[in-house]
């Protein structure tokens, strides 16, 4: 297959950007008209006023528009995985909308996500090779569909968990997709490139309305859709016509949401005995940055910066020769662990300060016993 040039994907990004910019206000108006709003009633909600949902519809519209534009004008960009992503992405949007409106239970959502991930595997992937992080391939055999489903559902939840501050999830996905687009262009992976260019364009277009102070939220529909596209498109890496599951580069690219999900999973395991496993909390990384005193904009920009750095590492992992490749995941893991520990230390320092000031207040002779 002849690989289309980078300019083609720049055009795709532009189309997706324009569609997202044009349609987001329409969906915002629909959400306002029908009262589909996110009310700041729960303690984990950061925003102060009701904000319309349905931003996720703009992502779906942008992807469908890009596919239509491509198949009519530039059919060489279309790969067999693109239609299954559109069809199953629509199912994910329906699931997300139901969750936005009725607040579905976590287990129901997870089961649907796993089912959609498995369906995507059978419909569009169908290979059994997994590229090992240390650069070789293992034959997954019958475990391939389960691993594919877990990966897709995992990425969906990781993106969903980061959707807690204005512009955070869309920005992180924009950075990750930009990096994966670069890797895709270098490695000549047309299927991934079209999806990543679309995600990049639609996220940038959506950020026009979603960056702080946001006038619309993507909701679960948007976050799950972005996660599905990111997970689904990275599931298949086409090299020399061979399809294998190659997760190293995407794992590094979205290390931040993955780390947040892992930490959340550990917290939930601790709470599982009280039957609270599927209950959300206010201890995600963005919540913790806010608790340290950062404002929304700075917390979001800090996380962008971290993701950008991880993206650069991912590009390195994508282009380095086989022998040097193993160094990259270790560097990424070490950097992520260091960042989490640094955050933990800052929190401890802040707690000590707070305790010290509380002790001083108690010792104050002016305070009555």
């Amino acid at each position, binding site marked *: *297959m002849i690989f289309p040039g980078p300019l083609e994907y720049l055009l795709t990004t532009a189309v997706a950007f324009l569609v997202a910019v044009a349609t987001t206000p329409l969906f915002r108006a*629909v959400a306002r008209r*029908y009262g*589909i709003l996110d009310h700041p009633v729960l303690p984990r909600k950061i925003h102060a006023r009701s904000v319309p949902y*349905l931003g996720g*519809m703009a992502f*779906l*519209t942008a992807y*469908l528009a890009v*596919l*239509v534009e491509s*198949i*009519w004008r530039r*059919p060489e960009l*279309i790969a*067999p995985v693109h*239609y299954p992503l*559109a*069809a199953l992405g*629509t199912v994910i*949007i*329906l699931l997300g*909308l*139901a969750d936005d*409106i*009725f607040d579905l239970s976590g287990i129901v959502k997870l089961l649907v996500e796993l089912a959609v991930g498995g369906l995507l595997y059978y419909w569009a992937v169908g290979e059994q*090779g997994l*590229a090992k992080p240390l*650069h*070789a*391939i*293992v*034959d997954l055999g019958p475990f391939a569909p389960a691993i594919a489903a877990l990966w897709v559902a995992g990425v969906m939840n990781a993106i969903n968990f980061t959707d807690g501050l204005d512009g955070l999830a869309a920005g992180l996905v924009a950075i990750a997709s930009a990096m994966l687009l670069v890797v895709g262009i270098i490695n000549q992976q047309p299927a991934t490139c079209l999806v990543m260019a679309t995600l990049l364009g639609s996220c940038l277009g959506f950020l026009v309305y979603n960056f702080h102070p946001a006038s619309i939220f993507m909701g679960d529909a948007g976050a799950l859709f972005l996660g599905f596209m990111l997970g689904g498109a990275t599931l298949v890496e086409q*090299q*020399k*016509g*061979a399809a*294998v599951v190659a997760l190293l580069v995407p794992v590094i690219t979205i290390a931040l949401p993955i780390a947040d999900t892992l930490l959340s999973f550990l917290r939930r395991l601790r709470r599982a005995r009280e039957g609270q496993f599927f209950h959300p909390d206010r201890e995600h990384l963005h919540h913790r940055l806010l608790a340290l005193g950062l404002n929304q904009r700075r917390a979001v920009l800090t996380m962008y910066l971290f993701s950008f750095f991880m993206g650069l590492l991912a590009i390195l992992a994508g282009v380095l*020769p*086989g022998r040097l490749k193993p160094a990259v995941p270790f560097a990424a893991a070490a950097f992520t662990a260091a960042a989490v520990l640094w955050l933990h230390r800052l929190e401890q320092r802040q707690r000590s300060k707070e305790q010290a000031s509380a002790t001083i207040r108690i010792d104050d002779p002016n305070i009555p016993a």
Partner: protein
Amino acid sequence: MIITWAITGLLFLLFNLLWWPAEYRRLAADPERFPEQAKVLLQSGKREEALRMLEEGLSRFHPPAPDPWNAYAGLIRGPAKIQASLRAGWLSWRMNRGGADQLLELSRKACGAWPCCAGAPEANETTAGLARCWQLALGLPENFSFSLRDLAALAWLTGGRVSCDGMIGATGFRTDRLLAVWSPGADARAGVLIALGSTVYTDTRRGMHVALLTPGLDQPTPTFYCFDFWNGEETAREFSRILKSAPTGTIGIFAVTQDSRLNFSDSAEQCLAEFGIPVEAWENGHLVSFGLRHAFCAIGARGAPAGTAMAAWSPHTWRGTPGHPVSCMVYPEHSP
């Protein structure tokens, strides 16, 4: 929720209305759809163009389904027509899981229609080994027996290459011994078989199996290798190193089972090409290099011009139809 679901549904419906006309147009132009395209050409009276399209499609895709071969047989005359009809018969047999006797009858018919078959020698170990491979792959009863003639006819029927004058294809190199190679593709039960005279090498390990016969020795001892390309780029480097170090005239015999082509580097491809082996195949509308789960076997010689070696392949799947095992044989008539 009804409103939002209705909007999403309408959006997807609109997308489908715009997508499918273009997708059908795209699929109609897909080279893999050559039987349908040839049919349209034939209906509009363009017989020669239809014939060309079928010839090109058959050689490009090696379709493991009978219809394209039947269509081709309907347009030609002479020995090629008989071969195409017999090949369609084999593929029908395989798709319908016919009986062992029917297969034997088919291979005997092929043997009768193909002059090379008569000169096939008898070589007990090779015959037994090859027969065992076919039995396993085709699910034939264990007591079913083939002669080497039947096996040569079966190789010919299944799109393999058989040479009965000792010449290794059009490489310009020849052998005075029986050489046979068999590849099952994705089916790992039988593994590969490489036979050199009475020396038979079978292996069920996945990978590309290679036997190298150094020229200039009276009784050259083959060296066997197994390269599992799933293991990474290092394997491709080792493969290239060994093939490049072979002197000109070295006969190389290659067979694949369950291999990965991901790490099959351009340099490794080039090494195969230096044995005269064509290294390109079509799959899902794209030009790809050999490997992965294709059935692929070849007999070539180092230094032969590209594309002159004896090579046979069948795709992993072609439009949902699984490929079939392939075999190549070369023998000087009545060789021991």
